[in-house]
């Protein structure tokens, strides 16, 4: 920036998320400057933003002490200026992106400190599939926009050390050495606040000494602690290696592991047989196995649909209790009681009844809204012996699973879906992948499952079938399916999907091959 002045206020912006302690961090910075006898001004926009919104704190420090300025008083701004920020502190990586977008990070002067963890926004969290923001673009831009970046998962650092993130950030800010205050000015700011002084000083020291190159590597290493996989002795390894290309091995191995746990070895044979016919077809049309790999992933999930038996099985898995204890941070000497929120209804009952009874009951309930809506809310204490035994008994029903109503219904759906995949493969790999992906619509429980299934069925009926039978031009095929799927996942009310399907059926009607 064109500026004849040599000495000017040092400008700092802190971008945080409501409830993260951005206000405390900003008051520490102010007090550190005050301790050093420097003119300092800060301001903030809390208001409603403090309730989970983005919060912004802006601080200016004039690097000459009040004493030596005499009667002169710097005029300090209340707004961060475009191209006028020396240090930007983002407590979360998206907030760094927002600051760049606003022009508060510029290559000529801005030191950008950011914790790289994610706090997902409501739009990302409530997406029906995966609505997470892709960080790649942001990372590229950040590197080129800042004078220097200081990126690290500082929240993880804070967690591992049992301190709060804002203390670590304060330490980092002091540690990068671009503020005109001394170490004891910073530490004194924490001391004078009188709240959690010891832990905040510890956090400060960790941040102060944080080495952004070395410590970050070590950290990444620690974070990516792979789940313990003691059962990594892979069954069916030989068959997977011999029958399938390399691209499928990893996924199929996982699929096999899941199916063994779900139903046993015989069920795995069914799984691999089904995939064998897909790979044969894919090879015939010159594919490299990509479609088979994705089918393998989806098929494993579909074949391990979540019925009451599965729920009971997973709720009684060895290790679950210890996992929960770790997750809720129960101390060594602290007993816990786990209450499971279950609400079985007719549907769940049908799913474990033998096919004929189940079918009859399902039909009967279909015509009676009250019956369909009947559920029994149970809060089951699964840490009591009786509660656990009940769940184990339910899980034990799995030996009869293959005769249940739900099992037969699911297999019918799976077989039809695989047939579609097979037909689609003769058209093109792209269309086949799209057909495979449609399986991801069917997930969840109760209403969610029903809605997913309905969406799947309408996409199948209105796009996939016309496409496979040649009534819909093939060149539109893959895109049409993908659009419909995105629409189905885009809103839970189903209005977007209806619109897309309407458009497609117009196409079908006007198609010359009709």
């Amino acid at each position, binding site marked *: *920036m*064109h500026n004849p002045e040599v000495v*000017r206020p040092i400008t700092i912006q802190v971008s945080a998320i409501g409830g993260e302690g951005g206000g405390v961090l900003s008051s520490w910075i102010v007090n550190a400057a005050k301790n050093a006898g420097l*003119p*300092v001004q800060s301001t*903030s*926009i*809390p208001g*409603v933003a403090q*309730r*989970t*919104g*983005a919060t912004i704190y802006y601080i200016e420090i004039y690097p000459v002490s009040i004493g030596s300025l005499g009667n002169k*008083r*710097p*005029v300090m*701004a*209340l*707004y961060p*200026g475009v191209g006028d920020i020396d240090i930007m502190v983002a407590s979360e990586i998206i907030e760094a*992106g927002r600051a760049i*977008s*606003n022009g508060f990070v510029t290559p000529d002067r801005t030191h950008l400190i950011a914790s790289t963890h994610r706090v*997902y*926004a409501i*739009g*990302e969290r*409530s*997406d029906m599939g995966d609505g*997470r923001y892709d960080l790649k*673009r*942001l990372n*590229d831009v950040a590197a080129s926009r800042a004078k220097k970046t200081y990126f690290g998962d500082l929240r993880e650092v804070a967690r591992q050390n049992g301190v709060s993130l804002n203390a670590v950030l304060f330490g980092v800010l002091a540690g990068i050495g671009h503020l005109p205050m001394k170490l004891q000015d910073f530490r004194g700011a924490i001391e004078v606040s009188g709240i959690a002084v010891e832990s905040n000083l510890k956090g400060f020291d960790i941040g102060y000494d944080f080495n952004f190159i070395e410590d970050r590597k070590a950290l990444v290493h620690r974070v990516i602690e792979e789940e313990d996989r003691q059962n990594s002795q892979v069954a069916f390894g030989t068959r997977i290696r011999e029958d399938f290309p390399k691209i499928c091995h*990893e996924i199929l191995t*996982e*699929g096999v592991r*899941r199916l063994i746990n779900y139903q046993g070895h015989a069920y795995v044979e069914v799984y691999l047989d089904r995939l064998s016919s897909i790979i044969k077809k894919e090879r015939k049309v010159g594919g490299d196995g990509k479609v088979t790999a994705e089918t393998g992933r989806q098929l494993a999930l579909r074949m391990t649909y979540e019925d009451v038996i599965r*729920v009971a099985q997973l709720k*009684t*898995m060895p290790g679950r*209790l210890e996992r*929960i204890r770790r997750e*809720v941070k*129960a101390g060594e000497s*602290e*007993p816990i009681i*786990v*209450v499971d*929120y279950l*609400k079985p209804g007719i549907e769940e009952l049908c799913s474990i009844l033998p096919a004929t009874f189940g079918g009859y009951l399902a039909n009967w309930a279909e015509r009676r809204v009250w019956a369909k809506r009947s*559920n029994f*809310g149970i809060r089951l204490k699964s840490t009591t*012996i009786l509660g656990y035994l009940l769940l184990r008994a339910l899980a*034990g029903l*799995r030996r009869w699973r293959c005769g249940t109503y739900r099992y037969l219904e699911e297999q019918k759906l799976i077989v039809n879906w695989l047939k579609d995949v097979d037909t689609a493969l003769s058209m093109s790999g792209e269309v086949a992948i799209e057909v495979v992906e449609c399986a*991801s619509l069917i997930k*969840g*429980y*109760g*209403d969610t499952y029903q809605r997913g299934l309905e969406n799947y069925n309408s996409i199948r009926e209105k796009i996939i079938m016309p496409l496979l039978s040649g009534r819909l031009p093939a060149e539109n095929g893959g895109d049409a399916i993908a659009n419909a799927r995105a629409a189905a996942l885009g809103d839970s009310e189903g209005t977007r999907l209806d619109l897309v399907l309407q458009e497609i059926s117009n196409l079908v009607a006007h198609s010359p091959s009709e």
Partner: protein
Amino acid sequence: MERSFKKEVETLRIGEGDKFHGEGILAVTKALLQSGVSYVGGYQGAPISHLMDVLSDAEPLLEELGVHFEVCANEASAAAMLAASVNYPIRGAVTWKSVVGTNVAADGLSNLASAGVKGGALIVVGEDYGEGSSIIQERTHAYAMKSSMCLLDPRPDLPTITRLVEEGFKLSEASNMPSILELRIRACHVYGYFDAKDNVQPIYSGKNKISEAEFDFSRVCLPPATYSQEKHKIEHRIPEAIRYISENNLNERLDGEVTKIGIIVQGGIYNTLLRALRQHGLADSFGSSQISILVLNVTYPLVSDEISEFCVGKDAVLVVEEGQPDFLEQAINAILRKQDLNTEIVGKEVFPMAGEYTSEVMLRGVHGFLKEYSPPELDVVEALNEIDRLFAERDEARDNIGDNLPSRTPSFCTGCPERPIFSALKIMEKELGSAHISADIGCHTFAALPPFNVGNTVMGYGLGLASSAGLNPNFHKRVISIMGDGGFWHNGMSSGVAAAQANGNDGVLLVIKNGYTSATGWQLLPSSLRDRHGNKREMSIEKVLKSFGISWLKTVRSYSIARMVKALRKAMTTPEGGLKVIIADGECQLARQRRVRTQVAERIAQGRRDIRTRFGVDEDLCTGDHSCIRLSGCPSLTIKPSSDPLRTDPVAHVDNDCVGCGTCGEVSHAAVLCPSFFEARIIRNANIFDRLLWKIRRKVIAFLAPGSAMADS
């Protein structure tokens, strides 16, 4: 209260020779005491809530000085409180959030301003305009003009702000007009320093009471006095105000070397202007500018002579005025026209008509002005090019990042008792079809944002029920009105409930009772359990409603979603006529946590048994559909990457901020979502019985578990 100011209150005692360090609004409080104020009142609202909180914490000091502090029922009562200064020479100050609070106060203000004041009357308004504001974007300026009140808009540094507080009282006394001190949100929260003075004991106060009642008909708003009051404004008050402003240099003229152009700016945005000039290389960090600036610390009434003297001889003058209509620009043009001066006034041509003047808006505006009007002797070409380059590079970076950065809308806090109410509403709507919801002002207005998207109209604080009056008889099903307990006491019980009862409204009212005016920072209400001295209170919403003759009245714990759904269903479908009221009862979780946390810490320290509750999701049962999030939106109910290599969608996850309110479990139960949720009760300081039972259970469960000695089937 949002914050305790016990520590800061001590700084209110400092005197001559000391430096005051603190927030803007705290500095205003100090300035009030330095001005010898006798009484202070107001109604909370961002960004002036802290003024009320500070005074509430400063009770011992106020007692020493004999200053009365009142938490008013609403802004209208606060405005009416200034009546004390009509007949008697005592100074009073009231405060509220503008513009909405000023709207509520308008009736009182008109009468006050018409009667005129003897003692200084100061209204401190927190102008919540622009970024992050949740209110209507209108200007307080219009009120000052229509009611003839002085409007102070000081430069946002503490010495100027505090000086203008004292001058505001004097100006009010000199002109008999009430003064409004307008502080923008960033100025309220600005941390800075100023040289303190001693507090002043008011002449009349609780310590030295007024002994004679004054009757003066000319101060009563009845004809013919009303007409003569209006005349008095024109002939006496406004000229007196102008004389005082001018004689005491309340506006500041900062002359620079450049003679051909100048800038007139509202005081409140002077600092932003100066930064923009510095970025153009035209000013230094101490306020010395090459272009002359006239800073209007008083924006109404304008001093015509100051304006014309500043403009004379200049080719062009930039008027930097935030908001619309452009009252100042119009007035300045009129002044110059009358004096036959041909200086060109540039304002909204280079600035946006509406919206806040952020640093970017200011930089672009000044840039636009200089590009066109900069005289040849001023070398700004290089600076202008550099700023163009700056914006071009910024825009490029913005394009590269993309416009899909996830936005963070405000939402209910973790464990908020209002969330389950809206979950219940959504579940009810699934059953009975969508309803029309008349929303109200409060934290509950956030229900209109994702994930709930509930609330069709918002008409003002406490007006949820009143705003259904026209639609309810014309809508195919009962309209549901929302009202918080804050809105209820502010005006809703009369404007809403009493009116609905009297007119035979057949709708449904949902009163959200959390015990505080929480959106403004947990100030107490008449129905709060205890007053600020800790004494029990007897005022209850239920009793009021019963006394109004409401017969269909249910109180439901807000976390009991199933029961709330049932109550809503009944209210919507019962054949019974008249207003049906459901009180959703649940204390603000932030306030509760703040209280409970210390209590629990004490219990734990004493070694006493305590159960901590937390919720969780079984990751392997979660299929990644996120219905639970769409029906709750709790910040601690988030997502994480699935550790299952076969699942690509992220799974639901409860993080460690969970306070165990149970809403997620209740939602998954009431909406029949999925069996993934569990509640974990952690027993701390477990007794011997707990530990024994735990030992046995753990052993037996390990024995029964698949893969153990009992073996899998």
